[in-house]
């Protein structure tokens, strides 16, 4: 898989998206992250490995704890993709505004 695929495959899982949403509020450890889900800590650890492998989160060592936080660079990349797609639509729809205004003037009695 290329980098784009790895990123979006990591995002395709609802539990992983929920973990990211939680991390958007701030750094958290594995136990805190496991709490809202009915899954084991090892399962959460597996999800964290996928997220880390995709570059979506960063983990640091703090004694025996390894708290996680969002990787702002990776999210910026995803946002940039969505933004470019959005810009294509925006350019199209801005032209459509002009076209619709012209059509309405023509149709006006």
């Amino acid at each position, binding site marked *: 898989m290329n980098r784009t695929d790895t990123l979006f*495959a990591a995002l395709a899982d609802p539990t992983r998206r929920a973990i990211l949403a939680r991390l958007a509020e701030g750094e958290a450890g594995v136990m805190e992250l496991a709490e809202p889900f009915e899954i084991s800590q090892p399962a959460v650890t597996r999800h964290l490995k996928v997220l880390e492998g995709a570059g979506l989160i960063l983990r640091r060592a703090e004694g025996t704890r390894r708290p996680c936080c969002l990787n702002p660079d990776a999210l910026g990349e995803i946002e940039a993709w969505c933004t470019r797609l*959005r810009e294509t*639509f925006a350019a199209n*729809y801005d032209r459509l505004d002009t076209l619709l205004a012209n059509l*309405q003037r023509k149709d006006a009695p």
Partner: protein
Amino acid sequence: MNAPTRLTLATEGDTEVVVTRRFAAPPELVYRAHVEPDLIRRWMTGPDGWEMPRCECDPRPGGAIRYDWAPAGGGEGGFHLTGEFRELVPHSRIVHVERMHLPDPTPDNEITTTFEPTADGGTLLTARMRLPNAESRAAMLASGMEHGMEDSYARIDGLFADAG
């Protein structure tokens, strides 16, 4: 009539991308601009610097769609799209399937476009794009980048709206 509102674009679930936009024109006109080639080619040209030398569609169930894009004034890098209409409810709803040829075909993208009248006489357009799987959605978002524009890191509302 109020000024048109900003576009929203959000990912939804694993395979969908949903775009909404308001227009200061009634649904009938916005709908026509999506099914009449003479109108389509005047707006669906993507980023600045592109044009549609070929724009054909047959708006009835099973009818074919073929759009070609090329750099304005000639040059390399053109690509095209083929598709089929599945369902049309005049002035209200279009369901069609499309794929880009870059030149290999991208996975089928099923798009449901709805045109809803708003209280001020305008239209709320919603385009719901459904890809076969998460990977092909990723590829589609990335291909939006290929025909690229300047970087921008504006916050995408709702990127994680479906989390949890």
